[in-house]
């Protein structure tokens, strides 16, 4: 024990020196070298930053800083939208000026528009921006203030593995696939019918996860879980029928849990799933998970009618010390030109009709999707979106419970559809 104290002390001195050696010490001031710093939190990949192999981007910060030499933008990319949300919640509730701009997922908007006083009115900054009508409405508070600037949207198509289709003897041409699935009047019935045939022929899974299918299904109902007057109708027949239809297709599923490592690993597996519901931003996942593998293609069709999945807004909190500069940046980021750039770089589909008409968007071909005209396809898919679901009140809490219900049937196979539905009914009751 005698030498111990010295040995320990010496180790700590070394550790300390090593760790202090690299301490640059950056001050969290709004000004840095005379520049105004704007801090923004995003998640997943918004395509604003520098391009990397995993996260393609349009390098917009460099462009903005060049045009505005007195501005410095610091982007923090949260690991997941859950993560981003908990930071957002805390920062907003404690009035801490952690960030000047937040990227907000569609799921957060009900809470945000319910607290209009916490965010600045962007109306005067966004005069030159145009977004699809329902996107504009989604960013408005009850009092008519525009607090969310429309960023991307998630029009949904069907992505498919042409290599697996070929092996199964199904046509692989994207026009033929579109027709096979029912073209412009595609229904879920037709999608599952083709799936059943595919599964019978090959024994391989048709889709990745029930959760993925449900993600599209639920956006095709105006009032799904909650009515606009606040009544909860989640256990009504509309949802139940869809649930029954979906859970009857258990054998077609790859039984994966979306976003898990297992799910990621199956994008290029030989016995992987053949199709996946494909909101525009999912192309990033397909690319990231496929690596060098080239087998994915995309068809201009959405079973059950158009569907918008996800999409984001940008908001500026009242606590920001650089509100004016932040709002200007938000207006710039959500302007048609920049929406075009981010779609070009990172597949985040523009919410601006002007941007959608831009030849760079409408003419975009995606080499990782077998050179599919993704620009045109997603523009068509966006036009097909006729329904904007009401997502107020406990919509997302209930949705999470339904996701669990599907998971019990699909992923863990612990319950049959009926037992799982009963549990869902209890869960919904327990929520309130």
């Amino acid at each position, binding site marked *: *024990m005698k030498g*111990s*104290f010295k*040995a*320990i002390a*010496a*180790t*700590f001195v070394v*550790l*300390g020196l*090593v*760790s*202090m*050696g*690299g*301490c*640059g010490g*950056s001050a969290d001031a709004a000004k840095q070298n005379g520049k105004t710093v704007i801090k923004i*939190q995003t998640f997943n990949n918004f395509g604003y930053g520098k391009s990397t192999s*995993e996260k393609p981007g349009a390098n917009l910060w460099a462009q903005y800083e060049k045009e505005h030499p007195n501005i410095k933008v610091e982007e*923090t*990319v*949260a*690991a*997941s939208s859950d*993560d981003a949300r*908990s*930071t957002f919640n*805390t*920062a907003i*509730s*404690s009035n*801490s000026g*952690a*960030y000047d701009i937040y990227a907000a997922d569609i799921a957060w908007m009900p809470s945000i528009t319910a607290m209009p006083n916490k965010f600045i009115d962007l109306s005067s900054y966004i005069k030159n921006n145009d977004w699809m009508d329902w996107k504009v409405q989604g960013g408005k508070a009850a009092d008519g203030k525009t607090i969310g600037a429309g960023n991307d949207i998630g029009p949904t198509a069907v992505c498919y593995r042409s290599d697996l289709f070929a092996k199964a003897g199904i046509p692989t041409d994207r026009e033929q696939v579109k027709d096979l699935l029912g073209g412009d009047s595609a229904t879920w019935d037709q999608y599952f019918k083709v799936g059943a045939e595919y599964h019978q022929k090959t024994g391989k899974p048709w889709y990745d996860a029930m959760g993925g299918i449900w993600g599209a299904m639920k956006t095709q109902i105006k009032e799904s879980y909650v009515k606009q007057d606040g009544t909860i109708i989640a256990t009504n027949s509309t949802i139940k029928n869809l649930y029954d239809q979906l859970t009857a297709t258990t054998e077609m599923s790859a039984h994966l849990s979306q*976003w898990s*490592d*297992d799910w*990621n*690993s199956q994008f290029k597996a030989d016995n992987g799933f053949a199709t996946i519901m494909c909101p525009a931003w999912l192309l990033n996942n397909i690319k*990231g*998970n496929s*690596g060098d593998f080239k087998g994915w293609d995309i068809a201009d069709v959405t079973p059950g009618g158009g569907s918008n999945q996800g999409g984001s807004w940008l908001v500026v909190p009242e606590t920001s010390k650089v509100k004016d500069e932040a709002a200007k940046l938000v207006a710039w980021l959500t302007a048609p030109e920049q929406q075009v750039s981010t779609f070009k770089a990172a597949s985040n589909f523009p919410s601006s009709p002007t941007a959608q008409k831009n030849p760079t968007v409408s003419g975009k071909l995606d080499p990782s999707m077998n050179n599919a005209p993704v620009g045109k396809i997603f523009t068509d898919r966006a036009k097909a979106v006729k329904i904007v679901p009401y997502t107020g009140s406990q919509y997302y809490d209930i949705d999470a419970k339904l996701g669990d219900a599907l998971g019990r049937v699909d992923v863990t196979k612990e319950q049959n559809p009926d037992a799982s539905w009963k549990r869902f009914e209890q869960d919904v009751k327990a929520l309130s």
Partner: protein
Amino acid sequence: MVRKTLGSDNRELGVETLDQLYGKGVARAARKKRLAVTSEGRRPGSGSYAILVVALLLSIFPLYYAFSIASQDSPSTQYGVRALIPGGSLFSNIARAFHDIDFWQALGGTFTVAAIVSVSTVFFSTLAGYSFAKLRFRGRGVLLTLVVATMTIPQQLSVIPLYILANKAGLFGSIWAVIIPGLVSAFGVFWMTQYLQDALPYELIEAARVDGATMIRTFWSVALPAARPAAAMLFLFTFIGQWTNYFWPMLVLGPNKNKMLTVAAAALKGAHFTDYTVVMSGVILTTLPLILLFFFAGRQLVSGIMAGAVKG
């Protein structure tokens, strides 16, 4: 009635414990046995060594696996048994993680938290432990019971209010929100009290007092040096505990995940969901400093745990 110090021989402690627990006879027997310098224990057979080798392999395997994944050449989410054979890209992968988690900042933050918390815990624990062990005052029993009682309170119980309070204090995202709740530890006080009760003879205090030392001077020149071995242990354990802490920093660092290593490494999992070489590199960067520490102070850790065990 001079008592042996704990540091000199771990097993000597046992005599005191045995005395209290099993009576004089056992204690006397133990003492007698220890006087005679004889060979102790059974002779281990090859079975014993086999068990130890297996245990050692199980200790090392997960670390090896992490290293091996971190060294793979192609990005993937799952490697299976492929990763049992290391690849050649260890340094380039580590370099990517190094950059992504802003390693120097994370290391500096973790070190600052661990060092401040450990120093503060050790100092306040020794001070209070000395008072509880060697001084007598009204309310001592009640206060000591209070200390012991608070040791069982789970961290989670105070997470919610600490979170609310830290936010109200404007500490959200700051490493001070991690440091402040850790400044004192009931376990530390209990540990130092137990140790000083045995390790610090009254004679030493008396001698200092006879020399005219004030109370605080007595503490400084007599109690503190006597407490050094246990203080070093407490420091070491607090340091490792803070270094490996995850739940609370994750909650309260919020946007500034790169301020501490564990949280930064875990955040890599979301940021590089398609490339586990980077995630594992992050894990290695988090663990490596402690493994380094382990090589220098592992022996002390072992004796610290063993000393603490008998005190219970």
